[in-house]
C-alpha cells in the first residue's frame, strides 16, 4: 500500500541488532540525509554521533541552576538570620556560615536534580500523547528487541527511490512507510 507522499512521515527500516542500526545510520548520514532518527529499546553507544546529533546542553543548564540554588539557599538563610529574623542563641554570631552549609547544599542538589529530570522530559517533548513514528507497523518491538531507523519525508534530500536503495544495502528486517 503506497500512501499519498504528502501524508507520509517517512520511511522506516527495522533491524534486529544495535550494530546493524548503527551501521545504517552511518550509511544514511554519508548519503547526505539529515532529518532522521533512530528508535531503540536501549541506548546504543555512538548512535547520536552517527546521526550527526550535537551533544546535549543539559549539563550546562544543570550547572547554572545548581549555582542559582546555592546562591538562593545561602541568601535565604543569611537574610533570615541576620536581617529579617535574627535569633540570639547563646550570643553566637548571626552570620555563622558553617551552619548554613547543609541547607545550601540540599537546595543546590534539589534544584539541579529537578532541572536535570525536567529538562530531559521537557526537551524530549514529553509528555506527548501522539507521535507519527508510532504508526510504524510492529513499532512495539522498539521497546523490546527491534532497532528502527527513520528517514523523514521532510529531509531536503528525501527521495523514495534513494532511501529504499540505501536501506536495501543495510540488510534490514523490514522497510515500511509511516503515515504522518
Amino acid at each position, binding site marked *: 500500500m503506497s500512501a499519498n507522499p504528502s501524508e507520509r512521515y517517512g520511511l522506516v527500516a527495522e533491524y534486529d*541488532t*544495535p*550494530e546493524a542500526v548503527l551501521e545504517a545510520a552511518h550509511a544514511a548520514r554519508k548519503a547526505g540525509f539529515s532529518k532522521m*532518527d*533512530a*528508535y*531503540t*529499546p*536501549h*541506548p*546504543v553507544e555512538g*548512535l*547520536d554521533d552517527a*546521526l550527526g*546529533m550535537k*551533544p*546535549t546542553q*543539559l*549539563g550546562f543548564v*544543570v550547572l547554572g541552576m545548581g549555582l542559582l540554588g546555592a546562591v538562593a539557599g545561602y541568601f*535565604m*538563610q543569611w537574610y*533570615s*538570620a541576620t536581617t*529579617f*529574623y535574627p*535569633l540570639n*542563641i547563646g550570643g553566637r554570631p548571626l552570620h*555563622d556560615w558553617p*551552619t*548554613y552549609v*547543609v*541547607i545550601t*547544599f*540540599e*537546595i543546590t*542538589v*534539589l534544584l*539541579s*536534580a*529537578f532541572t*536535570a*529530570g525536567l*529538562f*530531559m*522530559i521537557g*526537551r*524530549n*517533548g*514529553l*509528555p*506527548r500523547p*501522539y*507521535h507519527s513514528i*508510532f504508526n510504524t507497523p510492529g513499532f*512495539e518491538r*522498539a*521497546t*523490546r*528487541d527491534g532497532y528502527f531507523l527513520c528517514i523523514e519525508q521532510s529531509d531536503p534530500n528525501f527521495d523514495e527511490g534513494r532511501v529504499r536503495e540505501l536501506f536495501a544495502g543495510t540488510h534490514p528486517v523490514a522497510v515500511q512507510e509511516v503515515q504522518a
Partner: protein
Amino acid sequence: MAVVTGSGTMVETNRVIAPGQTSGLIDDVVNTPVLVGPQRTPTWWWIGFSISLALLGLYLISVVHLITTGVGIFGNNQPVSWAMPIINFVWWIGIGHAGTLISAALLLFRQPWRTSINRFAEAMTIFAVVVAGLYPILHLGRPWVFYWLLPYPNTFGMWPNFRSPLAWDLFAISTYASVSVLFWFIGLIPDLATLRDAAKSRFQKLIYGTLALGWNGSAKAWQRYQRAYLLLAALSFPLVLSVHSTIAMDFAVSQVPGWNNTVMPPYFVAGAVFAGFAMVLLLAIPLRRAYGLQNLITMRHLDNAAKLMLATGMIVVYGYGVELFYAWYSGVEFEIFMAYNRVLGADHGWAFWLLILCNLVAIQPLWFRKVRQTPWALFLISIFVSIGMWLERFVIVVVSLTKDFLPSSWGNYVPTFWDWALYAGSFGLFFTLFFLFIRLLPSIATTEMKELAHHDAHHGSDSYEKIREAYYRGEVPA
C-alpha cells in the same frame, strides 16, 4: 558453559547475568508477572499483601489514636524525650540508603551488577523514606501544622532557625525523598514504555502509556536521558551521604554524653549502608525465588551485597570502639560514666551486648564464600543485622538520655504498647507499598538489562570473570 534457552531453565551462576539472556527473554521474565490479570495473581502475593494490609490497619489505628490523644501515648518523657519515634525514624531512613547507593554510587563506579537490583532497591528507598519521614511528623504533637517547619511567608512573621540541625534535617529528608522519587521515575520511563507496548488489555495500555509519557526511544531522547540519569546519579550520591550525616548531626551537635561525638556522621552513614544492604538481601532473596529471577539476580549479586554488608558492618563496629575510646580519652567524667553505663549498666547493658552479638559476631561467617552463596544463611544474617541496627539506635538514643549529668534528673524508659504498635504498623505501610510495587511495576530495570545482556553476548563482557576463570586454569600468570 551451559546455555539457558528458556525462561523455565534456571542455573545458579556467579556471573552478573546468566549466559544466553536476550532482550525478549528478559522482558518476558520480568514483565509477564506484572501484566497478568488479577485472577492470575500468585497466592504468595495475596498472602503477603494481606498480612501487610493488616499491619497497615494497625498503623492507621495507632496514628488515629496518636492524633486524637497526643504523644503521651508513647513511653518517652523527661529525661528520655527522644525514644522509639526517633529510633525508628533513623532505622527506616538508614534502610533506604542502600537503594540510592546501589543505583547512584554503583552507576558512577561502573559496576554492572547494579543493574539487576537497582530498581527494586530504589523502590525500597522511597518506601523506607516515606515510613521514616512520617515518624518525626507524628512525633511533633500537632502533626497537622508540620508545615510550620518550612520557610514560607507567614502571618506570624517568623522564620525557622536555620542554625538548628533539626531544620537541616527537614531540608535533607525532603530533598532526599523528592530526588529519590524523581530518579526512580526517570529510570522507570523506558520500562513503562516497554510495558505499554507489551500490554494486552486496553486498560493496561492506557495506564502504562500515560505513565510512560509517550517515550519512543529516539536517539536524541536517549542522549538527553543518559546525561540526565548520570547527573542524577552524581547528585544523589553526595545527597545520600549528606542525609545520614545530617541525621547524625542531630545528635552530634548536642551536648548529651554519647551524642557529642565527631565520629557520628561517617559512622552513621556506614551503619545506614549496613542496614540497607541487609534489607536489600531480605527482599531480594524471596523475590528472585518467587518470580524466578535467578538468571538476572544471580549469586554474584548476593555475594557482593554480603561483602558490602561485611565491610560496612566492620566500619560500624570500629565506630563502637571509637566511641568507647573517645569516652575514655576525653577524660570527661560524664562521658566515662556514659560508656560504663552503656556497656555494663544494669538497665540497658543487655542491649549493648545483644548489639555486639548481632552486628559483630553474626556477620563474621560472611568471610566465607560458601556462606555468602547460601541464600538462607544470608537471609538469617540479614535479620540479625536489622535487629542489631535497631538496637544500635536504641543504645545511642535511650541509654545516653536515661543517665546524663545530674543524678537527680536520671530516669528510665519503657516503650508502651502504642510504641510497638506504631512500629509494627510501619512494616505494614512499607510492605503494602512494596507488594503493590512488585505486582504493578517491573522489579528489574529491563531496559538496562537489555543493554547489559547485549554487551554480555556480543562483546564477551564480564571480562573480569573470564580472566579469573583463565587464571584458575593456570593460563594467565598472576
